[in-house]
C-alpha cells in the first residue's frame, strides 16, 4: 500500500487468475491508483518503464460511477495502443471531478509510438467489470480483471 516516505512504493501487483489478467493498483489518492492501474494494464502488453515520454496525449473520459470511469480510462489506453500504436510510459495530471450524472477524469498520457525497440508480450482484449473493486482504506486500491 501507499506509504508516505517509502523509498519505492509498490504501484501495482499482478495477481493470478486462471484465464485472464488480474491486477491491483495502489495510490494515496484515487487519481494515483487510477494512474497506476493504467501502468499495470500497460505492463501486461509492453514494458512501460522502457518507453520514453516523447508524445503527450490528453485524455478525457466520463462515467456514471468510479467503476465505469476506471473501465473507460483503461479502455482509452487500449484504444490508443490498437489504433494509434501508442505505448504508454507515464501518466500525468490525473484529475477526477464530480459532474452532473457522475464523474469526469482528465489526464495526460505520455509515451511513444510502437517501434522495433519495443517488445510486446501479451494481448489484452478488453477491460472487464468482473471482480472490479475500488476501495478506500489506507489510501486507495483498485482491482481489475482484463480479458486476454
Amino acid at each position, binding site marked *: 500500500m501507499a506509504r508516505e516516505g517509502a523509498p519505492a512504493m509498490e504501484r501495482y501487483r499482478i495477481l493470478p487468475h486462471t484465464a485472464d489478467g488480474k491486477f491491483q493498483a495502489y495510490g494515496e489518492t484515487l487519481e494515483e491508483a487510477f494512474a497506476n492501474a493504467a501502468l499495470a494494464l500497460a505492463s501486461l502488453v509492453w514494458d512501460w518503464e522502457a518507453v520514453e515520454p516523447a508524445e503527450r496525449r490528453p485524455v478525457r473520459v466520463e462515467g456514471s460511477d468510479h467503476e465505469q470511469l476506471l473501465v473507460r480510462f483503461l479502455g482509452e489506453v487500449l484504444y490508443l495502443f490498437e489504433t494509434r500504436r501508442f505505448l504508454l510510459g507515464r501518466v500525468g495530471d490525473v484529475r477526477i471531478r464530480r459532474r452532473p450524472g457522475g464523474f469526469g477524469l482528465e489526464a495526460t498520457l505520455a509515451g511513444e509510438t510502437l517501434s522495433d525497440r519495443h517488445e510486446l508480450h501479451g494481448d489484452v482484449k478488453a477491460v472487464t*467489470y468482473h471482480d472490479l473493486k475500488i476501495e478506500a482504506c489506507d489510501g486507495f486500491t483498485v482491482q481489475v480483471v482484463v480479458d486476454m
Partner: protein
Amino acid sequence: MDARKIDENTWELPAEGDMRVPARVYASARLLQDIRRDQTLAQARNVACLPGIERMSYVMPDAHQGYGFPIGGVAAFDLDEGIISPGGVGYDINCGVRLLRTDHDEADIAPRSKELLAGIVREVPAGVGKAGVTKLSRDVLKDILTRGAEWAIENGYGRPEDLERTEERGRMRDASPDEISGRALERGLPQLGTLGAGNHFLEIQKVLEIRDERAAAAFGVRGVGQVLVMIHCGSRGLGHQVATDFIETLGNAYGVSGLPDRELVNAPFKSAEGQRYYRAMCAAVNYAFANRQMIAHWVREVFGRVLGDARGMDQVYDVCHNVAKVEEHVVGGRSKRLVVHRKGATRSFGPSRPEVPALYRTVGQPVIIPGSMGTASFLLAGTREAEALSFGSTAHGAGRVLSRHEALRRFRGERIRDDLARRGIELKSTSWKGVAEEAPEAYKDVEEVVRVSDEVGLGRVVAKLGPIAVMKG
C-alpha cells in the same frame, strides 16, 4: 450447496434462491474437480437466475470461470420474456475454428513442412497489435460487417463452396453495421485478415486416429496421416469493442445494481437496446467469418506455391464458439424459437437439423475442438440427443487450468519450442512469453473433454488430429 450426481458424467445444481431453473454440468469426476476450483459453478447459478431462461443453465466439460457467464456455458432464453447478454457471448465475438482438409499425406509434406510454415507466417499477420495487409475504407468495412464471408469470396478470398461449409453460411443476416461504434470500426479497420495473439493459432495437422469411419468419410477425412489445417481466431479488436460498448449501453439502460456480477448485464431480447446489441453482435460475427475466410485463402495459396497445387483443400467446416443465435428447440414438448447463448461452447447439431449443410445431413455437423498448442485436437459430429441435453451444444476446447501468470512462472517459451521440436513439431511465434503462457500443461486434458462429450452424447468423436507445425499468434 453442491453438485448432485445424476450419472457418471452429469451433475446438477438444483434451483435454489433466485435460480429460475437448475444448472447442469456435463463433466467426469476429474473434470468436475477442475471446474470446482474456480467460480464456474457460482456463475452457472447466476445465469440460472436470468429472466426467461429455459430448461437449464448448462456447463460444458471444458468449462472454467469467465466474467458473468462461465466459459463453456450454454443458456437459452424465451424471445418474449427473456434477455440477451453480451456477457453470455464473450468479448471475442465469433471466436471460432475453421478446418481445411487436403489430399496430402504426412510423408508428402514432411520435407516441406518448414517451408509451408514459413510461408504461412509470411502471409498471415499475427501477434499483438499486428496490422493486416488489407487497406480498407469504412464503407468496405461496413460491407464486410453486413456480408461476412460472402464479401471475402466475392473479393477473391476463397471458393463459393466454402460458404455452405460455414456455420450460418458465413453471414448472419440480422447484422447491422450501423450499430457498430466509430471506435469499434477504428479497431477493426487495420486488423482484418490477422490471426491475433493469446490462444489463437494456426496449425498444420495430421490425422492420428479415425474413430468413426462413416462420419470421417463424409467430412473428407480418409485416413491416418492425412494433412489438415486448423485456424483458430475471432473478430479481433472490433468484436472486443462491440462487447465493451454494449456492456456499457445495456448497463446504462437497465442498471447493474441488482446483478451479482456487472458482466451479467442484459436487456430484454426484444427491447431496443437488446436488438441493437444483437444486430451489432451479428455484424462482429460476420467480421470474424470474413477474417477466417481470408486466412484460409492465404493458407491455400501457400500450399499451392510450395507443393505445386492446392487441390483437395476443401473446407471441412467453420464453427463459432462465442455467439448468440435464434434457433428452434423443443421446450416442454413444444417447439419454440429461443435465443441460445454459447460462450466457449460449440453448436453440435445432429442429422436432420435444417441448419446442417445438405452434404452432412446424414452424419451431423462437423464440430471442431482445438486442443492447446502442440497437443491433439478433435473432429466430432453433432448429435440429435444434444438438442435435448444442451440445446445442441458441446465443448469448445481444452480450457485453462493454470493462470497465465503461473504458466509464465513455470515454463519457458524456448524450452517448449525445443520440446516440440524433439517430437518433430515446428513452432513459430511472435512472442516466447506468449508461448510460455499457452504451455500445454496450462490446459485441461482435451482427450478427457471429448470423451465426456462422446459418452454423454453431446458430440461424437470422429477423428483425433495432431500437430505437424504450429503458428502461434
